[in-house]
């Protein structure tokens, strides 16, 4: 069960090492900005090796892994839609749209989902824009 995560972590470690190759060195050959990323990469490869050679004693329950994969992906895409929505309508309306969309994704009734989005947009505008002035 830990082989695949182990391989992915090892691959990430190798990638970090390779990406840090162009970083400059200090005078007299002392390590510079590459030192810390390379130490992390080494740690990742070692931890990954340990995960691969020492399999987990308690396997993860299959039931805990069952779920619907498409919905988390759609949720992430809806949140990323903040960027164009913000450009078109400002932060409060953009947040309202996201809240309504996520509510619909989670099977909340459309009328309630839209009302929640409108109320959230109102609260965001009042608190973040008018009262605190942080956005």
């Amino acid at each position, binding site marked *: 069960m830990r082989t695949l995560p182990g391989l992915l972590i090892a691959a990430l470690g190798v990638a970090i090492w390779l990406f840090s190759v162009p970083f400059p060195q*200090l005078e007299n050959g002392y390590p*510079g900005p590459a030192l810390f990323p390379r130490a992390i990469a080494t740690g990742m490869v070692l931890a990954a090796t340990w995960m691969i050679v020492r399999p987990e004693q308690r396997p993860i329950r299959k039931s805990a892994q069952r779920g619907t994969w498409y919905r988390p992906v759609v949720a992430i895409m809806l949140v990323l839609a903040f960027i164009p929505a913000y450009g078109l309508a400002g*932060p409060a309306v953009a947040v309202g749209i996201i809240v309504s969309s*996520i*509510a619909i994704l989670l*099977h909340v009734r459309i009328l309630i989902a839209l009302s929640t989005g409108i109320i959230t947009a109102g609260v965001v505008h009042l608190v973040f824009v008018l009262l605190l002035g942080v956005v």
Partner: protein
Amino acid sequence: MISWEGLAALVVGGLYGAVFGAIPGLTATLSVALFIPLAFFLDPIVALPAIIAISSVAIYAGDVGSAVARIPGTPASAAYAEELHDVCRANGPLYGLGISALGSAAGGVVGTIILIVGATALAEVATHFSSFEYFWVAVLGLTAGVFAARKAPVKGLVALLLGLLFSTIGVDPTLGYPRFHYGNTTLLGGLDYVVAMIGLFGFSEVLEYCFRPGHAIVTTIAQPSKSFFHAPLRLIRHSWSVVVRSSVVGTLVGFLPGAGADVGAWVATSYKRVSGASREQIVLAGASSNNAAVASAWIPALSLGLPGDTVTAMVLAVFLMKGIVPGPLLFENDIGLVMSLYATFLVANLVLLPCFGFLTARLAALAVGIPTRLLLSVITGVCVIGSFAMRNNPADVIIMAAMGGVAFILRRGGFPLAQVVLGMVLGPILEQHFMVSAIKSSWDLTSFTDRPITMVLAAATIITIVFGIQNRRR
């Protein structure tokens, strides 16, 4: 010792801190920063109590998001966000936030007592801390963090390395070389760990529910005052040694300039996890240590004129603006002001924290009464606006969403999330102080252990490793 205007400032400041701290993305530091322009026009006996109330209550209020939706409001509250959320899930938000608020109050009182008794002596110790000692403090915190993942320290190590990796994005803290930014200006400035925290803890909860609809968020229970006051007070009475030890750790780490409440809370909670404490005791340890650190950050500020954290840096600006000169002479020339600060800390911790804590806990209990699917939709909106509000940068929303995705995958693999934040908080401290120390000593690595305090810290790190391995075998 405290004027009526000062008391009024305490109450208004506490309310302001409660609102700010409870909203994800708005930190205690930001709340004080927004208050500073107003503070310049106020008398110090009004401005300083308000700042103390804002910072003390906002640090506690950072736990409200953790309680309701696993979104810690501050890096310090991320140290025990998972445990607090679990406690709230099992026993209701009033009980969880009761432990947090009353633990914060107890820690704040201990921190204030240490501030009163040992300000000058501790400030003297702080002057002996150089980059070598700071390096070892970071190593100690990271070591404790690895073994804090008791069920799977290797997974804890991987999560920690991932956090350290995230901390390397942007300009290198010592030499100024840009790393892993791929031409993106937001990445060049580094990942903001509050934005990362919102994604890691808050948005990942939404993704988890999208993946597996049906798992409940939190529950509500009856008898609010009994849940908020009686049961947590009983816990504090039984676990008083946890409060004292964690408060002392919070104070000792908090008074070091640059370390502050965040590192203090992580060190205190990591040790409680290593020793196999209950979830309630871990919350108690974290809450008491971070509020103890709020008080102790004033030690170098009052005694030496050195800021302990960003809040006290702003306080020093107010001092200078008002013609007050911090340092040893402050205790001789303006003892009245010093006494009023001490009294303000005690009132803020003994009165304000329980009152505003109860108020915010009641509001949190109302929030969790909302149907889960609707609550999660609103939480998504809060995650988005909270991450955007940090720097008014839409790219932070992308970072938040990406962190949510990373956390979702990590959770599927059984990797802990708290260690990712720990790596992000301690990574820059570790790297900067290692590089500075190495360059200072011409890369003579033996100089890392040839000073008395570094020897003690290195020994504590080794003891932590041995204790952690033994504890795991048991």
